[in-house]
């Protein structure tokens, strides 16, 4: 009988997928939709009237409505990669310091402090990025846009670092003491033990943390909604320009759209794609861990 309750989790996942898809799928056969947007336009560059070459543009309120999702995914990827670039080294370095070098007293104080960061709601991190980090960045670097990918990435990194730190620290702590002793007995210096024995042995755990962190960053909404500038610009390499992520797009625009509209359907389609991406990331994460585990324990 209890098993019925346990099904809840499975049911929830299925329902989520089904009912989001349900709002998006009609686009494949609705004629109204086809009038306003074609599936091809969603993903490929199109030369709109008034432009001299094909472009990727997300401009649902333009005339005609332009629904290309590529700038949104580019925006998400940009901010996420930049955030990971900042947070992975930071998180791992903090884990190394606390697990291997810090005296017990320091560890007992600093570890909860970093985990405190994990308890900060993302809306507060977004607020912090918007109000404080953006001004600091503007004053220090003189960006053209006050809210941009860089600022949003810093905010995102603050959300991701605790995830990576906690998992990496755990993984490093779990490396058996006897391996460290073996290395020391062979005449290794402490940094050699850390970098050549402990870190490699902790790799599956750390990899799990990185994948989890990536998933968290990709799916994060409030921080990017508040701090990224929200301009759906198709810009690949400039991190100082404003961006629009998939998540922010859904959050910002759904409130303004009529139910059943083409815009509505596309937003739900974005939701489906987002769900699929995080689902796949989750599976990949599990696979990586299983494979690394096999490699490190026995072939």
């Amino acid at each position, binding site marked *: 009988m209890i098993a019925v309750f346990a099904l809840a989790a499975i049911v929830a996942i299925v329902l989520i997928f089904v009912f989001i898809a349900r*709002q998006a799928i009609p686009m494949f056969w609705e004629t109204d939709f086809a009038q306003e947007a074609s599936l091809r336009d969603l993903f490929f560059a199109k030369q709109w009237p008034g432009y001299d070459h094909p472009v990727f543009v997300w401009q649902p309120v333009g005339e005609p409505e332009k629904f290309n999702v590529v700038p949104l995914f580019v925006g998400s990827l940009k901010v996420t990669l930049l955030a990971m670039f900042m947070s992975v080294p930071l998180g791992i*370095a903090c884990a190394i310091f606390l697990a291997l070098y810090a005296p017990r007293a320091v560890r007992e104080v600093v570890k909860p402090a970093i985990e405190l960061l994990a308890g900060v709601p993302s809306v507060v991190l977004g607020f912090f990025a918007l109000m404080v980090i953006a001004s600091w960045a503007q004053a220090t670097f003189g960006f053209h846009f006050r809210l941009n990918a860089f600022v949003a990435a810093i905010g995102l990194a603050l959300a991701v670092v605790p995830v990576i730190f906690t998992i990496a620290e755990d993984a490093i702590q779990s490396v058996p003491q006897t391996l460290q002793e073996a290395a020391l007995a062979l005449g290794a210096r402490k940094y050699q033990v850390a970098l050549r024995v402990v870190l490699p042995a902790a790799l599956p755990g750390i990899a799990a943390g990185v994948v989890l962190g990536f998933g968290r960053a990709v799916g994060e909404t409030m921080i990017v*909604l508040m701090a990224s500038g929200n301009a759906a610009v198709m810009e690949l390499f400039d991190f100082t320009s404003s961006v629009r992520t998939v*998540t922010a797009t859904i959050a910002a625009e*759904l409130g303004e759209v009529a139910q059943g509209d083409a815009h509505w359907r596309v937003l739900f389609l974005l939701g489906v794609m987002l*769900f699929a991406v995080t*689902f796949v990331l989750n599976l990949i994460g599990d696979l990586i861990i299983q494979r690394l585990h096999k490699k490190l324990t026995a072939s």
Partner: protein
Amino acid sequence: MKYTRKDWLLVGVAGISVGVILLILAVLLGQVVFNGAPVISMEFLTESPGADMVSGGIWPAIYGTVYVTLLMTLAGVPVGIATAVYLSEYASASSRLARLVRLAVNNLAGVPSIVFGLFGLGFFIIFVGGGMDALLNDGPTPVWGKPSILWASLTLAVLTLPVVIVTTEEALKRVPRELRDASLALGATRFQTVYKVVLPNAKSGILTGVILAVSRGAGEVAPIIFCGAANFLPYLPTDPRDMFMHLGYHVYALATQSPNVDAARPTLFGTVLVLLTLTFSLNLLAVILRARSRAAFRL
């Protein structure tokens, strides 16, 4: 132990990383307290906001946050505990159903918060609410099929389900095997054993999980943006079908939609301070409980 140059380099880099994180955390908290504390007063906490959203207090937001979080807890915790009980006490480790449930829980934990918002909209509001309207409601205006505390709390309940499940399972695992064996050996059924022996002994661990879930749920904004949160309501919600104001949502709305962000600054910081105080106290409570419950089983 002698440290070489490279040792110091590693310690230095790692230590600086920790320093950076702690610095940012300190700045964040410092700014919030420094700018927010002057705003806090009895009026601020107990009055409704004025029409400009900046003057007056944030009482409705506090009320709404508590209301929705309470409903979320009532809905989600029993299901979460039941699922954890199933995974820990009933299912064998390799059973297909158990593995599927765990997969679902893992994936649920990784679903982006905005996707939960879409779920709340597509499933609860449109499908369930719309269905209820079709069956029960005669008039043209939707009674059930619209954003409200009810649907928002159910959506949040699904979002925090993984937190409850994982922490409850951890707590159940910590109950020594011997206790279960003793109960079964006396002729108790599995259900009796769980209900009278295992659960009471896992009480504080489970409570920890509930508190963490509450803290998480109180801070989430993206799922409730189109599921019931409102910018400004002249009344307090008394019916679960009403919409509600919310601390986190208030921060988001003021920060991004205020005509005059500078004027809104004090209110913003004050609201953030209240929200952070709420989530931090809950987290602190959970940490203390967790430490006590671990100590209880350390002989």
